[in-house]
């Protein structure tokens, strides 16, 4: 049954061929960067497509040192860890307040936060830039860490609240009867139970933060705080005739998230599905 999804065999093979072509195109950027980044410049000049005839790590060294990709990499790690930690922590505490504690105005506050989920942030770039300048945060990690946290917060809070609501009431009641405080219940019961939800959000947010470009371009001008996406875009000018180094830089930018995808695919899909099925 399952094997004959599409009844006429020729049509089935046409579909499979088309789908395979799409699959190849999806892997292609990775393969293209790989085949170029390990070449010498001379080898690249001789042929731009096909398999490399040389194997060299020089391009990575040039990108890492000369083009400060090393610095950008560290910056990207700092910003990603900071923004993801802050946003998930805020979402967890808010989700707890919205699911397990009774207080006046909580339904209103819940929907008030949720309403900002669909706002396209790029249209806000002018006031955000002005505000960050006024706060003295331009050219600091804090500018993007705070902004990314805020932008991801509505979705994160939605997911954490939904997860906490699924925790059996009896468990919380029992803990209360035993005299556990609000804080103790959060730390000892809710947080340990929500590790799968937190993992889902960490992966999902990390993907966004690591790849974000426009606000990083807008808010981080100094080389010492720049992140990889902005750095890679600069590489084009810097390494215009050194494609192996340019592609090595882009490979360094791409590989961490590809690895995250390979290892944590489950969590990513879960985050997207949760958004779709709410």
């Amino acid at each position, binding site marked *: 049954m399952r094997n004959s999804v599409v009844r006429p065999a020729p049509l089935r093979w046409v579909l*499979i061929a088309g*789908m*395979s072509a*799409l*699959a190849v195109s*999806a892997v292609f*950027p990775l393969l*293209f*960067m790989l085949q170029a980044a390990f070449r010498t410049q001379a080898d690249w000049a001789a042929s*731009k*497509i096909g398999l490399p005839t040389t194997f060299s790590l020089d391009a990575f060294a040039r990108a890492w040192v000369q083009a400060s990709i090393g610095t950008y990499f560290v910056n990207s790690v700092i910003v990603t860890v900071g923004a993801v930690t*802050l946003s998930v922590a805020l*979402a967890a*505490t*808010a989700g*707890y*307040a919205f699911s*397990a504690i*009774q*207080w006046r105005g*909580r339904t209103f506050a819940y929907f008030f*936060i949720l309403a*900002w*989920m669909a*706002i*396209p942030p*790029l*249209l*806000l*770039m*002018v*006031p955000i830039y*002005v*505000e960050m300048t006024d706060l003295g945060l331009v050219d600091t990690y804090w500018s993007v860490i*705070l*902004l990314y946290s805020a*932008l991801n917060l509505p979705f994160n809070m939605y997911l954490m609240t939904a997860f906490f*609501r699924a925790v059996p009431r009896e468990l*919380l*009641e029992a803990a*209360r*009867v035993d005299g556990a405080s*609000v804080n103790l219940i959060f730390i000892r019961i809710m947080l340990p139970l929500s590790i799968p939800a937190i993992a889902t959000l960490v992966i999902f947010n990390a*993907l966004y933060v690591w*790849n974000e*470009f426009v606000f990083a371009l807008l808010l981080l001008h100094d080389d010492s705080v720049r992140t*990889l*996406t902005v750095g890679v*875009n600069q*590489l*084009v000018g810097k390494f215009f005739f050194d494609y192996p180094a340019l592609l090595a830089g*882009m490979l360094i*930018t*791409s590989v961490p998230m590809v690895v995250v*995808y390979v290892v944590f*695919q489950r969590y990513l899909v879960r985050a*997207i*599905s949760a958004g779709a*099925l*709410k």
Partner: protein
Amino acid sequence: MATMTDQALPVRPAAAPTRRNPLRSEAKWGYIYALPAVLVLAVFVIYPFASIIVHAFTRWDGFTDPTFIGLRNFQFLLQDQTFIAALRNNIYFALSVPIQLTLPLGLAFLIHQRIRGWRFFRWTYFLPAIYSTVVLGVLARLALQVDGPLNQVLSTIGLGGLSRDWLGDASTAMPSILAIFVWANFGYNVVLFLAGMSSIDPQLPEAARIDGASQLQVLRHVFVPGLRRVMEIVLVTSTINAFAYMFTYVFTITNGGPGFSTFVVEFDIYNNAFAFQKLGYACAMGLAITVLISGLGFLQIRALTGGRE
């Protein structure tokens, strides 16, 4: 996305009577736990949004105080040829929304039916969503250069006549960006549709097949009605993407050129604010596009839910 169909918040049964006034002492903690999130959102999302609404009606250079000028910015907007050309390009990208809806739907359906190789397809199709848009944009720019790999491949396989300066000509630069935009987003939508399909009772399509329905009929009459929620999301987010998430593609692939031929509204906002110091005018553009997107989203959801009821 803003439309929530959540059930009412569950009401906790009355607290155990052993503690004195437990509800009141708890309520304090509700505010304490919710406050940090509300504060961060208020300062970095809600305040900028309010600021856009206020400053859209002012002349503002960023150095001196803004002056209120009523609707002047919007009157000017309607005659601003650069803005209109940019908006036209955004609309061009938005015309791909039907493809962004149907292509992933079809692919997800085939994967859901366990077509040969479905695991491989499901895994690879999400990769474009993993790459940074900047990396994709820079790669596309390199690949489409006159002496770039695409033209090399074309001449190698004897189709040298087709090779051209893809990004140097307005008539091929826009379709090139469009193709990359659609390609970069399709896998994400496939995952959305797969999530929706897996939540549909498998007995429904089975019953339809036993009744002699073809695959297309099953897709059309069993899956599509069950996927209305996902279709809403794909429709609205694809439209938002076409109007508000094109900057990175354009900036990295053509930088708006040749001339202004691939210019988009976000680019115009960026230039007006940071090159021409017309911050008030840039805010007006941002507000106009926000209103436009909201209106389109509202119409799309109406069309999907209202059409059959």
